[in-house]
């Protein structure tokens, strides 16, 4: 059975009138939207920091951290007037702390909190401009497909009908169902994350299947990159500054998401939090933002809204990741620390364009694989949006939120539900991962080397001399054969998906895999030699691409 389909044409939007899209409505009602977020955050903050001037301490701490951040770690994206704001706050807070009357003092502190939240919320908030959105959806695929057709020596093709962008982008999975659900409830897309290009890619893919614009959080520094910023500023992405780590800011961000979801805004977030450094599909998820999905569902139920929230796992599949080299180096250094955006990769628009160019000229395709939508408990939902649990039984979402006959809000319970949802998403990632020929050849080659040197740990392995990085072709071929057999079994059990090429014969798989493995990188990672051997030119990168099919217990199958 073949999996992927290609849409030759963009699908019509499920709601034609952009003015009817929740994302547009929210952006038109910005003032009330922000007020709702600020009020909710304020209520929670006051509850969290009850009594004993705890709020005053918090405000002092925030002010201190923000000045340090702006002076010691400034970014181009920083608002020049912000430092003034905090310096002024410093003075005001001192004055407030000297107020003797407790009630009056608390009232003043709350005012500071309000102002801080206003500053944050106005920075975070997304814009959505239908005209710019329409322009972008028309222009971007056009630009991409033009680039695609105009590679060196064949410039004339610039003037021939372009291969449609949507032909290059293959979509796989429950697309019809997703389109149906888009009008019944709020969709939350949760993709795997390997590359900085993932969000624009998903954005374009969604437009391709006719889903109204999604909102998503993007690093504030991305907004300073010319090519991206104008696009993102008006297409519904909200700004996240990861240097701000105080609880008030983080709660505002979460509530921004929660309130948006309750208002029906389809959203996108990368639940892994950051790009996979090792090249492996996420093994754990960040629960903070994911928790807003559960909370929003509970709020909808409380408000007697029948709008259900649907979570759609998405796996992005391609032969190469632009940042692979840097990512895997970080991983091996065990940098651990969350290192936000590698500026050098995206420093200028030229490099970005070059990548996009490479991407579409060198790579045969990109496949976006959609998993079956689930409810916030991780139960699969059918085409009517009804939840079906693991036993195949219909269940009602409200039943999970009712205790002793009463629908109630319980944060601890929501946290456990979020963990449950996260586990279901991780399983769906694995099941919807599409194995490419390049993943097969890299997995087999790396495993052969690793098994030859079992006594070495991964760091020692990386220092192997060149002479050790050669594999006999027949040994390699045997490995690929075994891997193919194991993959077909896994596919039968629905544990993963396979690209069409995997069904071809072994030689085709090997040649195709070698051709596309890291085709973006300066030199091929695996090369077939005239002596009938395979040599590895970059073991680190090989390791990165090998890791993509980790976690399926394949290692033991190719001995």
């Amino acid at each position, binding site marked *: 059975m073949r999996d992927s389909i290609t849409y030759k044409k963009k699908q019509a939007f499920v709601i034609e009138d952009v003015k009817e899209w929740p994302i547009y409505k929210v952006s038109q009602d910005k003032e009330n939207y922000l007020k709702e977020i600020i009020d909710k955050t304020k209520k929670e903050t006051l509850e969290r920091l009850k009594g004993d001037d705890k709020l005053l301490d918090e405000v002092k701490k925030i002010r201190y951290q923000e000045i340090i951040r702006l002076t010691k770690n400034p970014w181009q994206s920083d608002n020049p007037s912000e430092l003034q704001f905090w310096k002024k706050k410093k003075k005001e807070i001192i004055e407030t702390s000297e107020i003797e009357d407790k009630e009056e003092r608390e009232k003043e502190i709350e005012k500071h909190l309000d102002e801080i939240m206003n500053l944050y919320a106005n920075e975070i908030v997304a814009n959505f401009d239908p005209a710019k959105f329409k322009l972008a959806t028309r222009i971007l695929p056009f630009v991409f497909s033009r680039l695609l057709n105009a590679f060196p020596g064949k410039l004339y093709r610039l003037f021939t009908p372009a291969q449609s962008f949507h032909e290059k982008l293959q979509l796989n999975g429950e697309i019809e169902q997703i389109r149906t659900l888009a009008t019944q409830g709020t969709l939350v897309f949760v993709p795997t994350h390997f590359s900085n290009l993932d969000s624009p890619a998903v954005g374009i893919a969604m437009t391709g299947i006719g889903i109204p614009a999604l909102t998503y959080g993007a690093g504030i520094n991305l907004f300073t990159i010319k090519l991206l910023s104008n696009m993102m500023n008006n297409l519904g992405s909200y700004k996240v500054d990861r240097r701000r780590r105080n609880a008030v800011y983080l709660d505002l961000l979460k509530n921004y998401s929660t309130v948006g979801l309750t208002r029906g805004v389809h959203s996108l977030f990368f639940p892994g939090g950051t790009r996979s450094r090792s090249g492996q599909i996420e093994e754990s998820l960040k629960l903070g933002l994911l928790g807003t999905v559960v909370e929003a569902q509970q709020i909808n139920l409380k408000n007697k809204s029948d709008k259900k929230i649907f979570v759609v796992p998405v796996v992005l599949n391609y032969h190469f990741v632009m940042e692979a080299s840097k990512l895997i180096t970080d991983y091996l250094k065990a940098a651990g620390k969350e290192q936000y955006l590698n500026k050098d990769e995206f420093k200028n628009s030229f490099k970005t364009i070059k990548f996009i160019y490479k991407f579409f000229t060198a790579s045969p395709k990109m496949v976006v694989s959609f998993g079956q939508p689930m409810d916030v*408990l991780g139960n699969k939902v059918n085409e009517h949006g009804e939840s079906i*649990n693991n*036993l195949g*039984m219909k*269940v*009602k979402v409200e*039943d*999970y939120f*009712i*205790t*002793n*006959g009463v629908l109630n809000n*319980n944060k*601890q*319970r929501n946290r*456990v539900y979020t963990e*449950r949802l996260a586990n279901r998403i991780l399983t769906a990632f694995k099941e919807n991962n599409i194995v490419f020929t390049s993943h097969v050849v890299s997995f087999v080659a790396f495993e052969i080397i690793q098994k030859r040197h079992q006594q070495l740990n991964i760091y020692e392995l990386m220092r192997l001399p060149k002479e050790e990085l050669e594999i006999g072709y027949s040994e390699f071929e045997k490995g690929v054969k075994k891997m193919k057999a194991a993959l077909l079994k896994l596919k039968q059990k629905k544990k993963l998906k396979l690209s069409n090429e995997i069904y071809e014969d072994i030689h085709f798989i090997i040649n195709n895999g070698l051709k596309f493995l890291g085709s973006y990188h300066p030199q091929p990672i695996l090369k077939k030699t005239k002596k009938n051997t395979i040599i590895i030119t970059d073991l680190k990168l090989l390791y990165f691409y090998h890791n993509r099919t980790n976690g399926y217990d394949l290692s033991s199958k190719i001995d």
Partner: protein
Amino acid sequence: MKTIGVIGAGSFGTAVANLLAENNNVILFARNSTVVENINVKRVHKKQEINTRIEATDNPQYLTDNCELIFPIVPSSSFKSMLQDFKNLLTPRHILIHGTKGLHVNKKITKDLKLDVRDVSTMSSLILQETSVVRVGCLAGPNLATEIAEKQIAAAVVASRYDEVIELGKRALSSKRFKVYGSNEIIGIELAGILKNYVAIASGMTSGLGYGDNARSFLVTRGMTEMIYIAKSFGFTPEPFLGIAGIGDLMATCNSKLSRNFRVGYYLSQGKKLDEIIEEIGEVAEGVKTLQLIKALSSYGFKAPIASVLYRVIFEGLEMQKGINSLMNFTVEADVDFLNS
């Protein structure tokens, strides 16, 4: 007043129903209609007087329609079939707190059985696998049914990943004579209640062989260490073993002739065969099955000398005295080495 359900009218199930009836109305489910009639009419069952707030039924739907909080208390061997009877009636709205100390295995137990940890489930995992219920808890601790029935003072732990389940369990069960603690480590708490069973057999055996208190407390302490080693090799923390459901339950079962597992060990030491003992006690003591499972899981590499010697005594005819000698020869490095890492 909310009505609380109890599934299973064995001696412990009946005792728990009586305990719950001090604060709540209770519907007690029994499969056997004679038992139901006994409870509803004669108001005495398993030598226990039945609280007036208890109503018995053999209709599963009557229980699930009227109760959201339900305590299933049936032997581990029939737990799965009980769940199947209730499967279509239970929804995510129901909350289940079970009181069964045993494991379910999805394979037939044979001499050479090798198990993967995925083949074995505690009762709480079984509930999650077999029903639509997600909010699950367990009741564990030194709760010998006879003493609870006699209204003696006792304590227990309600464990669940959900705080609200712990709260509901506490509120339903607590009374002047019954104190309830909470824990979020449900699997650890369940394991403590299960693993202690074979230590109780060993304790009964040493007692029957005429060893004194020194020997027995030596055995029980090392038994607890061994239980922790086993749990840790499956990724669980030692904490649950140090509380009411661990040390607490261990002290009660390893010193009490009321404990079924203790009696198995005691009779074995008196030269009786396992089959005869089972006939006399009426059902398989959980500890015997636990030993078989520990052996089948031995590839996980934990140190469990007591379990392995006991297994050889019961199933391979090793002489008891030789078994004890080999335990005394076992080299150990430290008294307590399970608290760190």
